[in-house]
Structure formats: C-alpha cells, structure tokens
C-alpha cells in the first residue's frame, strides 16, 4: 500500500499533472476575485475565508479524474484489484496520494494567498489548520467520485456534479472555522466538527469507493 501510494505520488509529480496545475488554478482564482469585486481591502478581507476555501475545493476537484483513469486505461487497475491488497486499502492509498499531491500543497499555498486577499492576522493559523484537516476529507470524497465514474468516458463533468454536493458539509464547517477566528469568536468547536467529519469520511468512504470500484470492474 505504501509502495502504491509512493508510486502514485511519483507519477503525479513527474508527469507534471495535478501537482502544479491545482496550485496555478488556485492562484489564478484568488487573483480573479479582486478583478470581480474590486480591490477594496475591507471587502476582500471580509470574503477572504470563503474565497480561499472555495478556491482550494475547486482546485482539489481538478485532478480527481486522474485518480483512477490512467490506471484503468492501461489495465493496471484490474491487476491491482486482483492483487492481495484489499480494495479499501487501494482506495485509501490512492486518496492519500491525491491529498499529498493536491491537498497538502494547496494548504501550504493558502497562507500567502490569504495575505494577498488581506486576511486578518489571527486567521492564518486557523486557515492552514482547517484546510489541512478538511482537504483530507475532500480527497477521500473525491476518490469516491472518481471510483464511481471510472468506467464512464468523458466523466469529468459528471464527476464534478456528483462530488460537489458531497463537499457541502466540509465547505460549511471549514469556512466557518476561519470566519469565526477572524471575527473574534472561538473556532475550536467548528474545527472539532470538521475533524469529526474528516474521520467519518476516512472510515466510511473507502468502503463505499471499494464497492463502486468492484461494480465497475465486474
């Protein structure tokens, strides 16, 4: 499983796929916000938590269709499915690799991008923490969506339609952590709920994703 995870990370980094792409997308999206709403610092600071969370979420979505697609095309996925690794383990390894190549860089990039949007000083630590916790669940939920759509040609759009509604609780709680921190309320309760949500997805999603993969490989 670890080998599989490492292989996926290496593939993602070397092919130059999701790794840089998601970050570039995140940067461009954040850059677009002042174009859209004007450069007023107060307005930007007010909406920064939401924008950063939505930006990270959308950037996360970009590389999801690659999670299984390449392996499915060249038959590796079938070989992996017949290997002694349980399917839940396979899914978890894939999701972990996706998080390390997308969620983690997005989390790290969010702090400087937050500065660009004038996020108040007390927000940074909570922004990074909430994204670090939340993007894990984004990657796992996304892997579930990828497992569902693996057999569908040009399933990218459908993947977004399936995955985005599932992202709603994570987005609400994650953005709430930062908003509360910035407005001087205690963000710990929201962060705890977000953590609980992530643990729930960690426990349940691999099972569902493995079921979906099994249905697709039959």
């Amino acid at each position: 499983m670890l080998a599989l995870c490492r292989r996926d990370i290496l593939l993602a980094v070397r092919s130059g796929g999701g790794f840089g792409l998601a970050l570039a997308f995140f940067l461009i999206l954040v850059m677009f916000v002042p174009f859209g709403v004007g450069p007023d610092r107060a307005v930007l600071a007010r909406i920064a938590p939401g924008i950063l969370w939505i930006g990270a979420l959308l950037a996360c979505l970009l590389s999801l269709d690659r999670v299984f697609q390449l392996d499915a095309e060249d038959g590796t996925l079938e070989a992996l499915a017949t290997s002694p690794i349980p399917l839940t383990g396979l899914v978890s390894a894939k999701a972990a690799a996706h998080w390390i190549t997308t969620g983690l860089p997005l989390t790290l990039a969010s702090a400087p991008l937050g500065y660009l949007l004038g996020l108040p000083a007390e927000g940074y630590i909570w922004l990074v923490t909430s994204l670090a916790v939340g993007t894990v669940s984004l990657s796992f939920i996304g892997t579930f969506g990828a497992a569902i759509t693996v057999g569908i040609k040009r399933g990218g759009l459908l993947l977004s339609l399936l995955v985005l509604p599932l992202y709603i609780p994570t987005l609400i709680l994650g953005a709430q952590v930062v908003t509360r921190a910035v407005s001087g309320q205690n963000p710990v309760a929201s962060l705890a709920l977000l953590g609980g949500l992530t643990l729930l997805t960690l426990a349940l999603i691999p099972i569902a994703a493995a079921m979906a993969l099994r249905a697709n490989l039959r």
Partner: protein
Amino acid sequence: MSLWEYANPVKFMALSGRILPFATVLSAALLLTGLIWGFFFTADDFKQGSTVKIIFLHVPAALMAINIWLMMLVASLVWLVRRHHVSALAARAAAPIGITMTLIALFTGAIWGKPMWGTYWAWDPRLTSFMILFVFYLGYLALWQAVEDDDTAADLTSILCMVGSVFALLSRYAVNLWNQGLHQGATLTATKESPIDGSYYYPLLVCIVGFITLFVTLVLLRTRMHIRLRRSRAVLAREASR
C-alpha cells in the same frame, strides 16, 4: 406468501397492472378533492390572507421530496443486498418524481415567501437544504443516464444514494450551524395536538394522501416502463448474439 414474491418482474407486472387503474382513479379523486377543497372552500387567514392556500401544495410536495429520497434509499439497499431488479428500477423510477416535488416545494415556497417575508429567496437552512436535495437528485439522475450497463448503473447509483444520504443529512445539520432561519419549524407533527385550525387541517391531510397516492401511481407506471425497457434490451441483446 412473502413480500419478496413481487420482486419477480413477471409477478410485479401482473400485480402492478391490476393496481394501477385503482391507484390512478384514487389519486385523481383525492387530489381534486383536496385541492378544490383547499382552494375554493377555505377561509383566508387573518394574518397571511389568501396566501395560506399555498400550504395545500407546498407542504405535501416538501414532505414527498424528502420521503421519496428515503424510499430510493430503501430500494437501493434492497438492490444491493438482495439484488432484485425491480427494486433498483423502482428507485430509478422515483427519482424524477422526487426532483419534481423538490421543485414544486421550492417554487411554491418562493412565491409564498415574497408576500410573507418580503423576499422570494433567503439563505435560510430549510430553503438551502432543499436546494441541496435538488442537487443530489440531479447527480443521481445524471449517473443513471451516464452508465450504459444496467446492472453497473444500478450498483453505482445505489452506492451514490447511500453515500448521498449520509452527506445530505450532514449538510442538513451543517446548514443549521451556518445560518439562522426565517422558516418556521415543522407544523405537522404526529405526536402533538395540531396547531393549525381544522378547516385547513383536513383538506391538507387529503392533499398529502393525494400526493402519496399520486406518487405510488407514477412510481408503478414508471417502474413498469423501466422493466419493459430493460426487457426489450435483454431481448435484443439475445437476438444479436444468436
């Protein structure tokens, strides 16, 4: 005789064919009675004026929108556990009805909201939850459309329905944390004395039962349609392989 007998498509077709005419007549009669009673023969509310009449559409549609998703969840679980095709096709048949009910609840609610709250739309937890429910229905239907193989589609949509139910429920509570609402709590409860006046309560009850029978009628009709389509695909596939 066990209930599972009717999971056999042939038996289901025979039984549903016999029920369908009765269900059609019953749902038409109940809906006409309830809506005419509600529209023509109820007094205006002293506070809400005639807009109170919208309740006879709004409440049944909203109830059905949620309960149809639950029915789809049960049908999906039955498919995953016992692999009865009728069950999977019934879930598929119910989804378009559910999405229509969600739309009716949203639209009638918006029209009701304008004179009462001064706005068609507010980001209120209940309203938002219904919009989320609408998106879940959309994804579910799109997945059915996209997958070619019948059994794989049934599997995948069932799994999606299961996971979707968990996340729809989570969204419902997350949304509650996120904003305080304009919408009142549930008016109808099974346990407490009804707070609304009998002159509204009885036509509303007729409307709710009418919506339920309409749903049953449509689900039977649409399940029969999907069984026929599935059978014709199987017949053609057998023909092609010969």
